[in-house]
C-alpha cells in the first residue's frame, strides 16, 4: 500500500458534516467523532441534522440525516458558520445542504462514488450530473469508494460505512486511533464484543484508506483536559438535572423534540426511585404532575410547543392553587405543528403570559448544555420555595447539540427535602400570605390540622371560595408579589465585552454562544459592541436599564418572528418586535431594536456579525446631523 504525499494544515477550527439517508448511521458517526475530538481536548459542538420523517425515501433531498461537528482548538460555544468538509453517502442528501447555503464555498466533499456505476441508469445519471455541477460550483469533490472498501469486510456495507467514514475522518483530523477504538467500545459496549470488533475493523480500514489515498491532513491543536468533562446533549442534561434535583415524578406525553429527555429518564429514573409516567395526553401529564406536587413531591412535565399550549389551563390551576411545578418546554418551530425537529424561540410570550387571567409564573431559559442541567435544579428549588410554576424554555438546538462541560459535583443542597408531614399550628391558614412577599407555608396532605380544599376558584386565606372583591384582589396581589420577591434575589447579568459602547446586544436561550462569538470577533476588529444574555425572563433581573443606558444602541437577537422594517407596509405604528425586545421596551422604556430569523436552524455567528455591523452603521437620520 502506497502512502500518499501529505499536505498537513494546522487549523484553529473546522466544521465537519456527515450526511446519509436515514438509518445509515451518519449521526452515530458524527457523535462519535465529536466525542473523540472532545477526549483529545478539542472544543466541540455537535448539531444533529434530522429529517422530519422516520423513513424518508432513500436518496432524497429532504431526507438528509446526519451530524455537524464544529471542532476547535479552544472551547466551542455554538455550531458555527458554514461547513468546511462533508462526508456524504449519496449526492442527493448533499444537495439539500448545498441549497440551504450550509456549505462554505470551495468546501471539501468526500462523496460515496458507488452511484456512478449504479445499475439504474437514472441514478447513475443523477449522480454524474450532480457531481459535475458541484465541481463546476467550485467545491472540491473527492469521490470515495466507501461501499466497495466496506464490502471487503462486511456483508451489508450500508450498516458499517459510518465507521469507515469515522476512520477516514480520524485520519484526516489526525485524531488518535486508539481513542476512537475506546470510544467505539463505549458506544457499542452494551452489545457484544463481536459488534465492537467489527466496528473497530471498519474504523481501521477507513483510517488506512485515507492514509493511503488522500494527500491532505489537518491538525487542530488541542489542549488536553485537566478536569473530568461530560459530553451530553441538552435533553440528556435536562434528564440528569431532573435526577439531580431530587424530583421523583416526571409525567409526559410523547412530543418532538422533547421526548428524548423522557426516553433517557425512563431508562435511568427508576434506579434512584423515580418514575416517568407516560400519560394519555398532554393535559393529563400536566394534571398528573400537579397532583403529585400537591401531594408533596414536586414533579416535572416535559413537553414542546403544541403540548405546552394544551397544558395552559392546568398550569393556571397550579398558579391559582400555588402548587410547585416544573414545566420544561423544548421549543420547536410554530405555530401549530410547525417544524417539529427545527429550532425556534417562539414560545417566550406564551411561557410568560400563557393561561388566562393573571397567572404569574417563573420563566427561565438555559443557554448552554451545562445550563440545561443546572436550570432544572434551580427550577425545582424556586418552585418549592415560592410555591410557583417554573417554566424552563429549552429548544431543539440545545436538545440535540452536544458540548463538553465540567463534570457536575453532586451537592445535597440540590435535592428536594422529604415531604413535610409536621402538624399545622393552630390557627394557621393554607394561604396565610406574608404581607411583604406573598409567601405562605405549603400545606400538604397528611399534615394534621391542615385539612382544606384547594380550589381553582377565587379563594381567601382559608381556601374558601370567595367572590368578595377585596379577597379576589388580595389573592391576585399576593400571587404576583412572589415574582417580585424572587426578582429581589436575582443578580444583574454580567456584560460580555466592554461596560459601555456603541451597541449592546441582548439575547436569551440557545443563541448565547453565537452572539458572544460575533461580539468577540467585532471587538477584536475594534468595534465597541457588548452583549448581555438573560437566564431569567420572568421576572427579569434588575439593573438592565442602567446597563442599556451606557450604550448608544440596544438590540436583541432572537429566533422568533419580528417584522422586517424594510417591508413597505411596516412602520413604527404596526411593527411587531421580537418577544424579548417587546418585553425590554416595556420594562425599561429604552428604544430597544431587534433582529430575528425563523429559518429553523441555529443562528450563525457569521450572520450575527453581519447584522451587528449593519446596526453599527450610523442611521440616515444620524448621518444627516
Amino acid at each position: 500500500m502506497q502512502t500518499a504525499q501529505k499536505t498537513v494544515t494546522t487549523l484553529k477550527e473546522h466544521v465537519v458534516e456527515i450526511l446519509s439517508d436515514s438509518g445509515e448511521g451518519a449521526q452515530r458517526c458524527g457523535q462519535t467523532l465529536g466525542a473523540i475530538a472532545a477526549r483529545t481536548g478539542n472544543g466541540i459542538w455537535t448539531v444533529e441534522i434530522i429529517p422530519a420523517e422516520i423513513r424518508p425515501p432513500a436518496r432524497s433531498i429532504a431526507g438528509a440525516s446526519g451530524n455537524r461537528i464544529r471542532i476547535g482548538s479552544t472551547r466551542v460555544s455554538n455550531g458555527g458558520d458554514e461547513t468546511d468538509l462533508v462526508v456524504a453517502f449519496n449526492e442527493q442528501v448533499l444537495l439539500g445542504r448545498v441549497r440551504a447555503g450550509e456549505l462554505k464555498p470551495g468546501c471539501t466533499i468526500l462523496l460515496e462514488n458507488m452511484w456512478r456505476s449504479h445499475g439504474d441508469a437514472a441514478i447513475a445519471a443523477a449522480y454524474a450530473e450532480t457531481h459535475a455541477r458541484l465541481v463546476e460550483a467550485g467545491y472540491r469533490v473527492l469521490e470515495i469508494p466507501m461501499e466497495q472498501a466496506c464490502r471487503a469486510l462486511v456483508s451489508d456495507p450500508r450498516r458499517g460505512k459510518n465507521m469507515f467514514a469515522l476512520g477516514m475522518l480520524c485520519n484526516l483530523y489526525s485524531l488518535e486511533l486508539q481513542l476512537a477504538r475506546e470510544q467505539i467500545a463505549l458506544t457499542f459496549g452494551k452489545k457484544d464484543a463481536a459488534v465492537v470488533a467489527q466496528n473497530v475493523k471498519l474504523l481501521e480500514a477507513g483510517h488506512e484508506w485515507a492514509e493511503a489515498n488522500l494527500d491532505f491532513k489537518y491538525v487542530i491543536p488541542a489542549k488536553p483536559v485537566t478536569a473530568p468533562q461530560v459530553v451530553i446533549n441538552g435533553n440528556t442534561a435536562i434528564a440528569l438535572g431532573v435526577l439531580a434535583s431530587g424530583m421523583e415524578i416526571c409525567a409526559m406525553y410523547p412530543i418532538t423534540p422533547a421526548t428524548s429527555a423522557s426516553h433517557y429518564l425512563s431508562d435511568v429514573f427508576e434506579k434512584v426511585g423515580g418514575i416517568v409516567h407516560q400519560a394519555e395526553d398532554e393535559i393529563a401529564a400536566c394534571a398528573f404532575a400537579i397532583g403529585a406536587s400537591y401531594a408533596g413531591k414536586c414533579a416535572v412535565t416535559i413537553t414542546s410547543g403544541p403540548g405546552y399550549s394544551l397544558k395552559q389551563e392546568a398550569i393556571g390551576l397550579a398558579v391559582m392553587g400555588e402548587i410547585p411545578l416544573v414545566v420544561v418546554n423544548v421549543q420547536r418551530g410554530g405555530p401549530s405543528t410547525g417544524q417539529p425537529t427545527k429550532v425556534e424561540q417562539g414560545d417566550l410570550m406564551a411561557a410568560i403570559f400563557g393561561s388566562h387571567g393573571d397567572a404569574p409564573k417563573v420563566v427561565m431559559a438555559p443557554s448552554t448544555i451545562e445550563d440545561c442541567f443546572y436550570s432544572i435544579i434551580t427550577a425545582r428549588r424556586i418552585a418549592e420555595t415560592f410555591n410557583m410554576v417554573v417554566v424552563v424554555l429549552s429548544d431543539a438546538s440545545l436538545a440535540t447539540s452536544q458540548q463538553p462541560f465540567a463534570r457536575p459535583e453532586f451537592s445535597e443542597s440540590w435535592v428536594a427535602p422529604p415531604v413535610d408531614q409536621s402538624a399545622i399550628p393552630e390557627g394557621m391558614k393554607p394561604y396565610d400570605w406574608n404581607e411583604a412577599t406573598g409567601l405562605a407555608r405549603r400545606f400538604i396532605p397528611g399534615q394534621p390540622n391542615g385539612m382544606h380544599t384547594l380550589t381553582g376558584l377565587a379563594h381567601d386565606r382559608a381556601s374558601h371560595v370567595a367572590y368578595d372583591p377585596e379577597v379576589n384582589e388580595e389573592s391576585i396581589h399576593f400571587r404576583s408579589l412572589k415574582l417580585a420577591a424572587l426578582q429581589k434575589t436575582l443578580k444583574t447579568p454580567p456584560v460580555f465585552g466592554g461596560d459601555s459602547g456603541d451597541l449592546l446586544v441582548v439575547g436569551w436561550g440557545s443563541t448565547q454562544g453565537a452572539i458572544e462569538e460575533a461580539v468577540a470577533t467585532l471587538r477584536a476588529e475594534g468595534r465597541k459592541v457588548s452583549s448581555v444574555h438573560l437566564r431569567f425572563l420572568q421576572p427579569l433581573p434588575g439593573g438592565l436599564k442602567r446597563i442599556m443606558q451606557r450604550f448608544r444602541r440596544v438590540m436583541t437577537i432572537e429566533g422568533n418572528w419580528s417584522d422586517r422594517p424594510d417591508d413597505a407596509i411596516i412602520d413604527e405604528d404596526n411593527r411587531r418586535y421580537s418577544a424579548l425586545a417587546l418585553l425590554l421596551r416595556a420594562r425599561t422604556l429604552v428604544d430597544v431594536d431587534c433582529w430575528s430569523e425563523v429559518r429553523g436552524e441555529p443562528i450563525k455567528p457569521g450572520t450575527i456579525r453581519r447584522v451587528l455591523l449593519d446596526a453599527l452603521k450610523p442611521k440616515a437620520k444620524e448621518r444627516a446631523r
Partner: protein
Amino acid sequence: MTMMATECLLELCEQRHELEDYQSGVPRWCTGCGDNAILAAVQRLCRDEGLRPEKTVFVSGIGCSSRFPHYMRTYGFHGIHGRALPVAEGVRLARPDLTVFVNTGDGDCCSIGAAHWIHAIRYNMNMTVFLHDNQIYGLTKMQASPTSPRGTKSNTTPRGSTLEALQPLSVTLGVQNVSFVAQAVDWIPESLFEIVKAAYHHQGFSFVRIVQRCPEWLPKVWDPWLHDPKRILMLDHPQGMQVSDGLKQVYKNQLAHDPSNLDRAREIASDTDRIPVGILYRNPEVPCYEELRATPGLRTTAKLKQGLEAELDKFTFWPQ
C-alpha cells in the same frame, strides 16, 4: 407497660371520629339534589371506617358534583373541568399512604374528561370514583350532557337532544383492566351506602355510577323509576352485595348476579329499561398501576448520589 397501654388508648380515642369531624360548611346544592345523599353516605363511610381526615383526599373536577370536597373536612382538591382523574392519579402515585376519592359528574367524566376516564380504568389505580350522573349540565344551567336521554330539552337542545345517551356502565365495562363497577341510586340510601363501602374496600379503580336527581333542571326524568320500584333491578349475590330483607320487600325485582362474571355484567349494564343497583363487576386480581410501577427499596440521598454518579460516569472523559 401501663404507660404504653394508656398512650395507645389515648391515641385510639383521638383517632375515633364522629360524623361532624368529616363535615365542613353547609352544602350549597339545591334542595332535593341527589348530591346531598351521596355526601351523607360518604361521610358515614369515613366515620365507620375511621378514616384519618388528614390522610384522606377528595379530588374533583368542575360542576355541581365537584363541589363535594368543599363539604368534607379532609384534604380536598377542586381542580379544573374534566381533569380530576389525572390529578388523583398523581396524588396516588406520589403518596400511596393517602386514601383517594374522586367526585366527578357526567359532563366532567363522560364528556370533557372522557379520555382520562378510559385511561384511568386501564391504569387501575387504587381509588374510589363516584360518577354523580344527573344527565344534565347543572352549574352552567341546563345543557344536554352525553348521558342525557335522547329527546332531552335543554338550553342547547331546545327541540330535544338528537343523540342516544352514552351508557357509563357499558363504557367502563368495555375497557381493559376494569376491576370494579357498581351502580347506586341516590334515593335508596341503604344500598347507596353499602355500594360506596364495597367500592372503598376494593383494591383498585372502583367506579360507582350514582344515578342522581337534579331537581332544578331535570326534575321528572327519573320519575318512572322512582314511582315504579319494579323498574329497579336489585343485584344480589353472596360475592357481591346482599340485599336486605327490608329492601327486598320494596324492590321485588331481584337478580342473583355473580360480580365475577364480566359478560353477564355487560348484559345487565346494557338494560336501559331497568336500573340495576348493586355490584356489576369486581375483579380483585387486576394489578394496580402504582404497584406495577413501584420502585424497590428506600429512596435516599445516598442512593440518588450513587445513581447520578453512575450515569455521569457513562458520559465522562477523564484527564489522560
